[in-house]
């Protein structure tokens, strides 16, 4: 069968200050009908430029050479008008950022209708709108007719991506190009979207060119994989064989970052952090209350690492902020090193800050771009009044500790790579010799291949200095290899807590189970087998709490329960119960 897409010797160059910058360099690829090809590689390896070259949507400043054949027809060099007849009909695209890809001021229904009418000029306005509603319904948007009138920002990320997919499938394309379609989404939603894409392909018979850096996604959804480095093809082949025996360092690196490994086991010391009954509410507008944290108990002991996991919006980060603020919480108590923070005086609070440090998610934003690395690292020491010579020595020492060389000291964050930046952030956190380090998704802003490396660095440092970690994460494999204990949060409460081995390897709470199931794994067979367990629905509007168990509307267990059992769920919020070595907040989880 002739390939649906054939890229031959494609070169894309952008105009740079010192001559052209080559983004894609002599790339050749083919996609057969119905096939799913994954395009993987680091940031900047030319994946997106390739996709845009196929779509003919590169900026005007780009120079493109080579050949792109879609169903045997050359696309390069054709006019915008001609290409516009191809785009959206023969080849459709799903973009990475579902918010950015939808015009913010046009109702989603109209945008979908436009995808229809663009290729059916004769179709009436009403007919196009009807078709849009049908499409929205098909991609799983509830009450599609009403929701069609909503604006993109009134949709969640997952819903927006569904809209994008509805547009992509509007004209039964031969090829769908999906550029990191799930990287901005939670794992649970990612699983839903990937399922939907599979669904769409099954219905339309479209081939898929999937751009991603997540090999779990590849394992789950693709037949073949092509690895790119600096615009060139490094290797290409079937997913299963290549994952077994990667031929290139690039792929090997990507794979190793994704392998799940058991975390360390360390003896626990005296408690450094104890949280009881913590609650935090916000009023985003008059009359509305968001219960961001709704009764959380936690404790972290010296030398121990505890991970808080859960979907975006479940309140994990709010917990961290409540701790790091060192101020009396709205409700509940926060005790650090056996001191209740609510009674602290100014000086005590300052002293305590030395012992509690934080590493934030994105080093690009958490490091002041105008300061030199040495100054960034030294800042907490200066704040806490360390003597100058000591600061200098400590700064040098820290650079070495986090694996940076002394010449990095004078650089600015902008001159460092992402991984190096996060190392600087870690060095800064460790500078005043803290006992407890709060980590807010410390690696999620990094390229996949770097994540394991940084996580391992953190683990190593923890062991070396007997630190306690409280880490917020939604990356289950990485969490598994870095912590001893895990607490799973859902809508402001902890639904399950215990050792990492217990909770992540043998989840008990239906939510944890779904979370773990949604996590992509590298094993191709396993990845495909787990598809059935995808959690339906999304995190509800936090202002409108369901009664009883908050997880009830999405709970797969609840769906199977008898009426009596359901009544309990509906009426009574579940309290954490001891189930074996762990605590689970569910009415219907039995001890193992």
């Amino acid at each position: 069968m002739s390939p649906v897409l054939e890229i031959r010797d494609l070169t894309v160059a952008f105009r740079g200050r010192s001559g052209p910058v080559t983004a894609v360099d002599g790339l050749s690829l083919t996609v057969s009908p119905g096939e799913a090809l994954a395009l993987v590689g680091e940031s900047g390896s030319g994946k997106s430029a390739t996709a845009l070259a196929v779509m003919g949507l590169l900026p005007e400043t780009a120079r493109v050479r080579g050949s792109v054949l879609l169903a045997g027809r050359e696309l390069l060099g054709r006019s915008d008008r001609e290409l516009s007849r191809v785009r959206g009909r023969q080849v459709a695209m799903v973009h990475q950022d579902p918010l950015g890809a939808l015009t913010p001021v046009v109702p989603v229904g109209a945008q979908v209708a436009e995808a229809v009418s663009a290729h059916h000029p004769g179709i009436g306005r009403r007919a196009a709108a009807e078709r849009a509603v049908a499409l929205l319904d098909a991609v799983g948007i509830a009450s599609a007719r009403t929701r069609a009138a909503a604006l993109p920002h009134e949709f969640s990320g997952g819903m927006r991506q569904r809209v994008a997919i509805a547009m992509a499938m509007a004209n039964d394309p031969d090829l769908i190009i999906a550029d990191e379609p799930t990287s901005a989404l939670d794992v649970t939603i990612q699983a839903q979207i990937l399922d939907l894409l599979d669904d769409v392909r099954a219905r339309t018979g479209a081939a898929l060119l999937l751009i991603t850096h997540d090999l779990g996604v590849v394992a789950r959804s693709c037949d073949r994989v092509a690895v790119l480095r600096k615009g060139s093809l490094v290797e290409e082949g079937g997913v299963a064989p290549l994952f077994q025996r990667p031929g290139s360092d690039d792929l090997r690196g990507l794979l190793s970052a994704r392998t799940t490994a058991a975390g360390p086991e360390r003896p626990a010391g005296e408690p450094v952090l104890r949280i009881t009954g913590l609650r935090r509410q916000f009023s985003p507008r008059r009359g509305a209350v968001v219960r961001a944290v709704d009764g959380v108990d936690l404790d972290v002991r010296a030398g121990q690492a505890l991970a808080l996991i859960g979907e975006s919006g479940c309140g994990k980060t709010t917990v961290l902020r409540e701790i790091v603020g060192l101020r009396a919480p709205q409700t509940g108590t926060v005790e650090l090193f056996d001191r209740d923070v609510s009674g602290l005086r100014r000086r005590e609070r300052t002293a305590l800050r030395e012992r509690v440090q934080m590493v934030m998610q994105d080093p690009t934003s958490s490091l002041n771009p105008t300061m030199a690395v040495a100054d960034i690292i030294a800042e907490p020491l200066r704040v806490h009044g360390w003597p100058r010579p000591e600061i200098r020595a400590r700064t040098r020492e820290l650079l070495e500790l986090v694996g940076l060389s002394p010449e990095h000291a004078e650089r600015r964050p902008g001159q460092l790579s992402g991984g190096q930046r996060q190392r600087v952030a870690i060095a800064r956190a460790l500078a005043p010799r803290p006992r407890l380090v709060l980590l807010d998704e410390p690696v999620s802003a990094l390229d996949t291949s770097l994540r394991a490396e940084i996580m391992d660095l953190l683990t190593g440092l923890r062991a070396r200095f007997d630190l306690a970690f409280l880490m917020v994460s939604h990356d289950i494999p990485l969490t598994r290899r870095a912590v001893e204990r895990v607490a799973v949060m859902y809508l402001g409460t902890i639904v399950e807590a215990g050792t990492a081995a217990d909770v992540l390897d043998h989840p008990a709470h239906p939510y944890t189970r779904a979370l773990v199931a949604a996590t992509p794994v590298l094993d191709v067979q396993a990845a495909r087998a787990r598809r059935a367990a995808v959690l339906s629905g999304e995190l509800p509007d936090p202002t409108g709490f369901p009664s009883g168990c908050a997880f009830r509307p999405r709970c797969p267990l609840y769906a199977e329960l008898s009426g009596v059992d359901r009544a309990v769920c509906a009426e009574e919020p579940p309290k954490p119960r001891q189930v074996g070595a762990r605590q689970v907040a569910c009415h219907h989880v039995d001890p193992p």
Partner: protein
Amino acid sequence: MLDGERHVALSAPAGRARLAAGLAGRVAGRVALCLAAVLLTYTLAALSFDPLAELRSTQPPTPQAVLDARAAELGLDLPVLPRFLRWLSGVPAGDFGVTVDGHAVADEVWERAGTSLRLFLPGSVLAVLLGVAVGIWGALRAGRWADKISMAAALVLLAVPVFVLGTLLKILWLPVNEAAGTDLLPFSGEKTPGSDLAGWAAAGDRLRHLVLPTVAIALPQIAFYSRYQRAAMLEVLHSEFLRAARARGLTRARAVRRHGLRMALIPMTALVAFSFGLHLAGGVFTERIFGWHGLGDWMMSAIEHQDAMVVATSTLLMAVLVVVVGWLADLALVLLDPRTRS
């Protein structure tokens, strides 16, 4: 705040009610702004002006009794704030106090405001429309010569003071008028004084008077708006949603028309709102240069005559104008950007 976004579906009536409440709230806020602004200028004026200086320095001298009577009539015996409140309390009833030479301010206020509006509105509306058009045109041709030249021209226009521009226009046009042997496009006033024209001829006469000042008002504003519009449009042109619109099969032109334009106009509403005061100041020069006796001219002569009530009144009207334009901009924003309705 919270991580992650959520979808909040608003029921339509609730949204509309909130929208109305929001717009009403803005009006209240803006009225307060007006009053504060007027209080500020009135205070400055009342503290620094000496309205009787002119009368005091005549020869033969003005009788003292006349000076005293005038001082009492102007309320100069009161402190500034009560004087302001006294003035303000008359405003709702249309009483704007008296000028230093004894006129009721109300006699003149509407004529002045009308003149200003007739002069300023056509120019400004034209300027916004053309500025937006030129900006978009430039953005679509970004980097080409036509764009570079128009942007450079805009920069030069903005570097020339408004009053110089008016003078330059006159200089350029005078030879044309002289060659024509008559005033094809007159330089002063809003109509030919003493003309007996009526109907269309009168309208034509007014139109001829309007051309040059309108150009003088519009040119710098066109330059100003076009630069911002161009930047806004460029940003939109590089946006993901426009690319997405093309990806679903719209031609570039259609994507720009259907999706780009509206988005690029959104930031302009705020720009028009906040820069209106600035352009209004430019209008003062234009009024002076082209002999239109509007608010700006009034305020300037009030400053010369040390007349605080006229200053306050003209300030009030200008502030109201600024505020109304700001409110219209709000309205335009609501129309352009449905996100603001919730």
